[in-house]
Every structure is written in structure tokens, then in C-alpha cells.
């Protein structure tokens, strides 16, 4: 049975060359030629041959990239004729993919370009290259047959998933599910929601009564002294003044209750909105905490986060200010129209004629509004980001004396913002003018025809006309609302979707469901053939095996970017290795609870982070229950005690983004104190003393020497003097361990370590130190 699915024409072309489709190990499409044109091609790998299929460029063919169109779309229109070139594998020493800025090249023997392709095919091409590497270089230990390509297409409609890791098809996703999911957030506030809705209906009902009171009742019954009517409401003896008083009172109470209900509704709305926004944000924050480091490293995080948080408000805003009004306005619209038609259908019809015009005008002009608003938003963002830029970079601006230029830059942005705002106002005026003209026109027409009817005395009273005009005015609200609610609706659901994206994303590093308990680990670490890369095809660590014994201090040396930090990140399981495994006391770290693992591994890294809070809180971060005495002891051990006391507020000094600024060395000492207090079994020092001076380093060195007793320590350093006390050293170069042994052994080896050491001693000697 053939393993790789190939289009029919490709199979035929291969078979014509004597390559049977059963022999195909891997194949990948290519979609470019080296003259930068889109042209279909295929690269096919068999056990002994690399087949290159090419076809002339076909600019008429529509190219569908990932996420657009279906698999069958992508395969349709493939050329029927292929030019085939066979390359025996004996002639191909190596095969590499070189990523260009926005495409890839398949290169053989370090200089023969075999194929060019867009990023759409880069993954598959990498698979082919890996299969080639396995053929050339069989490693029985790692001969893992690669899994077949994951299903990347929605089974329902055949659309490619935009994000393979989240198998949600945007086309098939039910909008109502999102709607229901958002509604679920409102469930705890069902009671308040009900009150709010009642208020809405109350207001709508009162609004319906108002024109009747103020028109028909006041003019036609009370002012016209309609005794029959007065009898009906229980006022005898034609007490018109009483009736007037009554009607005024009724009108007053109608208005009052509308106002009261509005206030009540406003209060409840505010309560519900803020609560739901709070709940949503809480969930997002929780999801953020759960996600793995790699999520934060991905390029979209920053903007996504801020967007999502404002999205929470937008979604809730719509559900409060939009969704209920759909109901209310539909109710108002239908009831008002019904009442109008029942009063005088001719007049009702007249008043309806111009309404579509205003709706259409409103609808048509909306895109312009969006554009103007968009421009103003962008201008505002530009102003904001410049202010932000200048505040954070104030020192640089001053140092280079560029205040004037910054001012003129600000002026440009500021002026642009003013222009944008002005054009919105201008446009808004035009729009409002048009909209209101239509509205007024309708009113005039109704008044005119109504008045004519009153004059002709065709059983049409003045009060009825006033009532009627009142209803006409009430129509404008719902009409205006319906002209933009649909855009609003889809925007808010888009926001909701973005939020759920975060809530639904599955962390890459998952905690084992039945973790092996390990309250007191010994600290024996074993790396077994570990391969890892941040991108699948670019291994940063290659097949690393390393045993760090309990209580040992291991030094790691290597140039920047060699993979040292990555190695220690794997131990605390910030990432999982792609191949191989890491064991702590013989237990795979994947089987440990996060809590057990991370409580026992503390890291002092080159990136120090100070949280907003006091010095005390910062040191006690990993162990909030620590006593004051313990905190002081940790600070003393980290040589931080003295500088802390030099600050006026001592251990209560507020540090972090809003507080006192600390120097790089001070921050580092705080984080060392933090690690000391955490009292871990495994201590990782990643350039822990890189930003302190030699004198302080010596002091810290002494405390570290104290600290590492009874612990397994891994120390990464550029400065070799830092590693003087290491029991053993490894040199990592290019993701591989190149040298390993004690200091003496490595020196005797005359390798990288020796060179580095010589260089550093000579450099120091030149400066007259040591």
C-alpha cells in the first residue's frame, strides 16, 4: 500500500519514469521557481532517489494559502504534465532547507538549489528533509517513524484550520454557541437581569402611554370637555378642573416613573456590566497563568492580551447596551406601529414612507464613519505611543538634546489627531443634519396631512393628531438602533471569539493527571538523549545526555546562543524536549506535579524580575510564610542586606516598576536572596553574577558556596572565575556537549575551555587585575 498520497498526475509522471508510488517515502509540493514565479512542483523522496517534478509557471491559477479554501481546491488545477528529474541519492550528500525572508529553498550539496516554495509547504518540506537525513544517517535509537501529517482540514466543510493546534473551523463554528457562551457569564446575575428587563419594558410601556395622555386624553377629552369620557373614569358633575389636575398628575407620574425606571435600570446595568467584565477578566487571567512559556514567546501575545482585555468590555457592552435593546426596540417598534395603524392607518402609512430613507441613509454612511473613527483611533494611538515613548526614553531625549525635535514630532501627531477629530465632527454634523431632516420631514408631512384631516373634520381630532405625532417621534429611536445593531453584533462576537481563543488554548506543557508524588527529592538529574528546539526544525539542543549527581555543582560554559539557558529551562519544565527525556531521581519530570517540581527547582537567571512591592515581599516571593528573621538571613547570604539598609525605608522600601529604582547588581542580589529563601533542592544559576562588580561577585560567591551545600547546582557563566568551585564542567557548543570534565581535565584538553580561560586571564593580565 502506498504511504504517501500523491495527486494522480504526479503518480502517473513518476510511474512513467519507473518510480512506483509504493516506493515513495515522503513527498512535498513546491509552488515557486527560482525566478520568483508561482509554478507547481513536487519533490518526492524514495529510498534511493530524489525526484524533482516541475511545471511551467501558470499565473492564471489561483493560489490558495493556508486557511483559505479546501484541500480539494488546492489540488484542483494541478498541471497534468510534469517535467521529471531523477537524482540518485548517491549524488546527494546533504539536503537542507534555507529559509528566505518569506519563502524557502531546498538546497542539495550546499549549493544546488533544487526547489523553491512558499512558507505554505515549508513544514512538509522539512519532513522530507528529515526523512532524507534518516536514510543517510540511520540511528537505530532514534529511528522514530514520523507521524503522518495531522489532519489540518475541517471534516465538515473541508476548510483548512487557520491554527492547527486549535481545531476550530471558523466557518463551521456556530455563532450562536459563542452567543450562548457569553450569556453563560450573565447567569449568576439572572435576578438583576430580570429586574433590568422589567425596567426596560416598563419604560417602553410608559413611552407608549405618554403620547396618548398628552394628546388624545388632554386635548380631545379634557380640553374638549368630553363628559362621557369623564363619566367613564369616574368624575361626575363635569369637574373639568379636577380632570385637568388628574391628567396633569397622571402625566407627571408617567414621566416620573420613566425617569425612576431609567435610573433603576442604569444602576442594575452598571452592576451587571462591571461584574461580568470582572468575571471575564478573571477567567482570562487564570488562563494566562495556565499557559506555557512558549505561548508568551509567540509573536502575537502582547497585542492579543491588551486586545482581549478591552474585548471583554466590548463584549459585555454589547450584551448590555445592545442585546436587550433588540428585544425592547422590536417591542417598541411593533407596538407603536400597531397603535399607529389602529388609530389611522392612512396616516401611519404616510409616516412609514420616509422611515426607510433614514434607515438607508444611516446604513450607507456608516462605513465612512468607521473609517473616520478608525483614523482618529490611529491618530490617538500615535499620540499615546509617542508620549509613552518619550516618558520611558526621557533620559535619552535629554542626553542627546532632542527635546525640540520630539516636540515637533509630537506636534505633527497631535495636529493629525485634531484633524481626525474635526473631520468626524464635520461628518457627524452632515449626517445628523440629513438624518434629522428626514425625520423632521416625516413629522411635517404627518402634521400637514393630519391637520388637513382635522380641518376637513373627517372624524379626526387634534388630540389624536398630537398623540400620533408623538408616536412618529418614538419610531426614530428603534429605527436608528436597527441601522447599526448588526454591525455591532458581529463586532462584539468577534471580540468574544478572540477572548475564547485565549480561554480555550491548551497549554503545551501539561501536568500529568496522576503525578508521582515527590515531596523530598534528592536532586539527581539525568538528561537522556535530549533534543529540543523552539521551532521544530531548528534544534537548539542536539541529542544531549548528561548526568548531574546529587549535591554536585555543575558548571556550563559556552558562547552566547549555544543553548545553555535552554538546557536549564528544560529541567524546570518550561518546555518539554522534542526527543529524549529528563529524569529527576529516576522519575521522568513529565510525571511530576508542577508544584513538586518547581518548588524544588529555583532559578536565578540573567533576567531578573522585581515585582511591585516591598523588598521584603520580593524576597519572600517563593515562600510568603517566611519569618522576618529568615528573610534577613537570606538577604545577608545574598550580600543584599547592606544595600537594603542603605535605603531609607529598609526592608519596607517599595521597589519594582512604580517604586525605587535598583541597579542591575542590586536586582540580581534580591533575586539570589529569593532563591535562597525558596530553599530548593536544585539550584540553577544562569549568569547569576553577571551584572555585579568583581568585588560583589566575590561576596556573592561566598554566599553561593554556602548555598550550594546539600544541593544540586547548575551554574551557567561566561566569567570562568564564577565556576571556580564547580565539581565538573561541560562545554556546550552549537547545541552539543563538546567537552566534559573537571577543570584540570578540560585545561589539559587544550580545547575551547582552555582557549576561553587563556583569553580571560590574559585580558585580566592586560588590565593589571589578578
Amino acid at each position, binding site marked *: 500500500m502506498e504511504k504517501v498520497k500523491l495527486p494522480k498526475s504526479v503518480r502517473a509522471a513518476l510511474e512513467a519514469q519507473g518510480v512506483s508510488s509504493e516506493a515513495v517515502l515522503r513527498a512535498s509540493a513546491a509552488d515557486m521557481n527560482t525566478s520568483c514565479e508561482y509554478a507547481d512542483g513536487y519533490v518526492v523522496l524514495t529510498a534511493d532517489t530524489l525526484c524533482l517534478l516541475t511545471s511551467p509557471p501558470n499565473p492564471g491559477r489561483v493560489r490558495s494559502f493556508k486557511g483559505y479554501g479546501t484541500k480539494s481546491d488546492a489540488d484542483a488545477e494541478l498541471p497534468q504534465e510534469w517535467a521529471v528529474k531523477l537524482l540518485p541519492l548517491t549524488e546527494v550528500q546533504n539536503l537542507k532547507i*534555507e529559509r528566505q*525572508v518569506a*519563502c524557502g529553498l531546498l538546497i542539495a550539496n550546499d549549493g544546488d538549489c533544487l526547489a*523553491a516554495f512558499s512558507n505554505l509547504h515549508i513544514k512538509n518540506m522539512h519532513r522530507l528533509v528529515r526523512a532524507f537525513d534518516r536514510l543517510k544517517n540511520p540511528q537505530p535509537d532514534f529511528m522514530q517513524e514520523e507521524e503522518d501529517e495531522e489532519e489540518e482540514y475541517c471534516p465538515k466543510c473541508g476548510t483548512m484550520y487557520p491554527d492547527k493546534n486549535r481545531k476550530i473551523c471558523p466557518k463551521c463554528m456556530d455563532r450562536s454557541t459563542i452567543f450562548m457562551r457569553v450569556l453563560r457569564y450573565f447567569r449568576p446575575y439572572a435576578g438583576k437581569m430580570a429586574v433590568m428587563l422589567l425596567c426596560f419594558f416598563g419604560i417602553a410601556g410608559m413611552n407608549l402611554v405618554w403620547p396618548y395622555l398628552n394628546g388624545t386624553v388632554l386635548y380631545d377629552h379634557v380640553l374638549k370637555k368630553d363628559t362621557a369620557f369623564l363619566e367613564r373614569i369616574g368624575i361626575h358633575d363635569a369637574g373639568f378642573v379636577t380632570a385637568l389636575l388628574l391628567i396633569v398628575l397622571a402625566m407627571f407620574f408617567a414621566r416620573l416613573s420613566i425617569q425612576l425606571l431609567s435610573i433603576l435600570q442604569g444602576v442594575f446595568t452598571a452592576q451587571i456590566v462591571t461584574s461580568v467584565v470582572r468575571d471575564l477578566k478573571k477567567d482570562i487571567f487564570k488562563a494566562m497563568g495556565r499557559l506555557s512559556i512558549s505561548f508568551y514567546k509567540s509573536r502575537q501575545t502582547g497585542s492579543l492580551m491588551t486586545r482581549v482585555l478591552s474585548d471583554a468590555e466590548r463584549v459585555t457592552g454589547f450584551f448590555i447596551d445592545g442585546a436587550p435593546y433588540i428585544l425592547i426596540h422590536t417591542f417598541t417598534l411593533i407596538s407603536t406601529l400597531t397603535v399607529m395603524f389602529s388609530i389611522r392607518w392612512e396616516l401611519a402609512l404616510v409616516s412609514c414612507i420616509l422611515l426607510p430613507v433614514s434607515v438607508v441613509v444611516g446604513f450607507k454612511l456608516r462605513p465612512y464613519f468607521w473609517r473616520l473613527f478608525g483614523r482618529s483611533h490611529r491618530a490617538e494611538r500615535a499620540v499615546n505611543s509617542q508620549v509613552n515613548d518619550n516618558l520611558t526614553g526621557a533620559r535619552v531625549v535629554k542626553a542627546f538634546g532632542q527635546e525640540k525635535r520630539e516636540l515637533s514630532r509630537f506636534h505633527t501627531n497631535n495636529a493629525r489627531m485634531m484633524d481626525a477629530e474635526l473631520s468626524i465632527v464635520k461628518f457627524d454634523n452632515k449626517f445628523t443634519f440629513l438624518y434629522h431632516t428626514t425625520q423632521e420631514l416625516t413629522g411635517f408631512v404627518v402634521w400637514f396631512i393630519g391637520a388637513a384631516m382635522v380641518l376637513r373634520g373627517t372624524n379626526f381630532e387634534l388630540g389624536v393628531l398630537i398623540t400620533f405625532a408623538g408616536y412618529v417621534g418614538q419610531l426614530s429611536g428603534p429605527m436608528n438602533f436597527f441601522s447599526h445593531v448588526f454591525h455591532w453584533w458581529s463586532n462584539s462576537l468577534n471580540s468574544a*471569539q478572540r477572548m475564547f481563543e485565549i480561554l480555550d488554548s491548551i497549554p503545551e506543557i501539561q501536568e500529568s493527571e496522576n503525578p508521582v508524588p515527590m515531596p523530598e527529592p534528592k536532586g539527581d538529574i539525568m538528561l537522556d538523549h535530549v533534543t529540543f528546539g523552539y521551532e521544530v526544525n531548528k534544534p537548539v539542543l542536539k541529542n544531549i545526555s548528561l548526568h548531574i549527581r546529587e549535591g554536585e555543582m555543575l558548571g556550563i560554559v559556552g558562547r552566547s546562543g549555544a543553548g545553555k539557558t535552554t538546557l536549564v529551562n528544560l529541567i524546570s519544565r518550561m518546555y518539554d524536549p522534542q526527543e529524549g527525556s529528563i529524569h529527576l531521581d529516576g522519575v521522568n519530570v513529565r510525571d511530576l506535579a508542577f508544584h513538586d517540581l518547581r518548588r524544588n527547582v529555583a532559578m536565578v537567571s540573567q533576567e531578573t524580575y522585581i515585582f511591585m512591592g516591598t523588598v521584603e515581599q520580593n524576597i519572600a516571593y517563593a515562600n510568603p510564610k517566611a519569618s522576618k528573621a529568615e528573610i534577613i538571613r537570606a538577604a545577608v547570604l545574598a550580600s543584599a542586606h547592606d544595600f537594603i539598609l542603605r535605603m531609607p525605608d529598609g526592608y519596607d522600601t517599595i521597589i519594582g516598576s512604580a517604586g525605587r529604582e535598583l541597579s542591575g547588581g542590586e536586582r540580581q542580589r534580591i533575586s539570589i536572596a529569593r532563591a535562597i529563601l525558596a530553599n530548593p533542592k536544585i539550584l540553577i544559576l544562569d549568569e547569576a553574577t553577571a551584572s555585579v562588580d568583581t568585588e560583589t561577585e566575590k561576596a556573592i560567591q561566598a554566599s553561593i558556596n554556602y548555598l550550594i551545600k546539600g544541593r544540586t547546582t547548575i551554574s551557567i557563566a561566561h566569567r570562568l572565575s564564577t565556576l571556580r568551585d564547580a565539581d565538573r564542567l561541560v562545554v556546550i557548543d552549537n547545541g552539543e556537549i563538546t567537552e566534559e570534565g573537571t577543570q584540570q581535565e578540560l585545561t589539559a584538553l587544550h580545547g575551547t575551555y582552555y582557549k576561553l580561560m587563556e*583569553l580571560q586571564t590574559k585580558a585580566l593580565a592586560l588590565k593589571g587585575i589578578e
Partner: protein
Amino acid sequence: MPPFGKSPRGPKPGGDGEEEFNLEQMEKETEEMLKLRYLNRDNAQFERTKGGFVSLRVGEEFYPRVHVIRMFPFSDPTKYISIRTPDEHSKEIGVVEDMKQVSKETAEMLTEQLNLRYFTPIIQKIINIKDEYGYAYFDVVTDRGACRFTINIGSHSVVHLSETRILISDIDENRFEIPDVTVLSAKELKMLDLFL
């Protein structure tokens, strides 16, 4: 401090372990590294290779294949072209300050390399843009033919290179460019509005 182990230019003599430590040599290499070497038609010979790339002979040195990279790919695509070794720790061999300073043929073959490296179809016409759930689906006509692609709206997939020039990256980071949005029709602008 210069990077240790490897000499900055060209293959180093001997293996890792045998090379004797030599401070003077390292200092010399560092100094060399700090110099910007300009290449022009008099000191450098570029030639096409059989494999579809470009080789370079400059003085005594010969590089069977070089990388050609723009220092300012957007703002100055024909000036300041860096010529580098093609290995992982790519090192600069020299700089072509201006394409005018090399022969027409050389400029041509360098441009070919650049075009491939910075392959970016130019969007000429927008047929449709639809946004749905954080993704936008583009249906466009480019100078390389009709293309349909998807972008993630949340990420920085639309970059403004200038007031009027935008660069769009799809979810695989394939690039598409609109050199001047002002030449688009009102209808096209309306569709693109979300990203302007």
C-alpha cells in the same frame, strides 16, 4: 571580546583541539571584523554558480557561494547590500554600497538573488476581504497571479511601512505588499479599512 573558537572569516585551519591559542591573531581578526569592506566592480568578481546561486572572488579569497542581503530592505533596496558567508554563523564578507558601483551583469545577478530572498508578491487588486473570528480572508490579484490567503488579525500581520505602504503577512508568514494604498479604488479601500 571576540567570539572564541572560530576565526571570523573563512574556514579555520586545523581542528578545534589542535589550534594554539594566539592572542595576537585573535586581535587581528577582531580588527578585521570591525572594518567595513566595500565591494565594487574593481575589487570583487561575482559569478553565477551552476546550482543557481552566486560566487564571489575578492582578492585572494574565493567564496563558492554567498548570501546576498539588503541592509534596508524597505527603505533602500538597491543600496547597502551585504555579502555574507552562507553558513550558520553568517559573517560579512563585504558590502556593495550601491548597485551602481558594480557592473550591470553583477547587479542583475545580485538582484535575482535578492528577489528570491525577499519574495513578496505585490497586491494589485483586492477582490474581497472577509473578516471572521479574528482571521481575515484575503482574495487578491498580485503581480504573480491570483492569491487567497488568511491572516491572523490579532498578531502584527499588517505592518505599515509608511503612511501609504503596507506589508501583509499570512499565517505562514508569506508576505504580500501594497506599495501605495492611495491608488486603490474606494471599494477596495473600504474592504481594507479595518487594517488601515
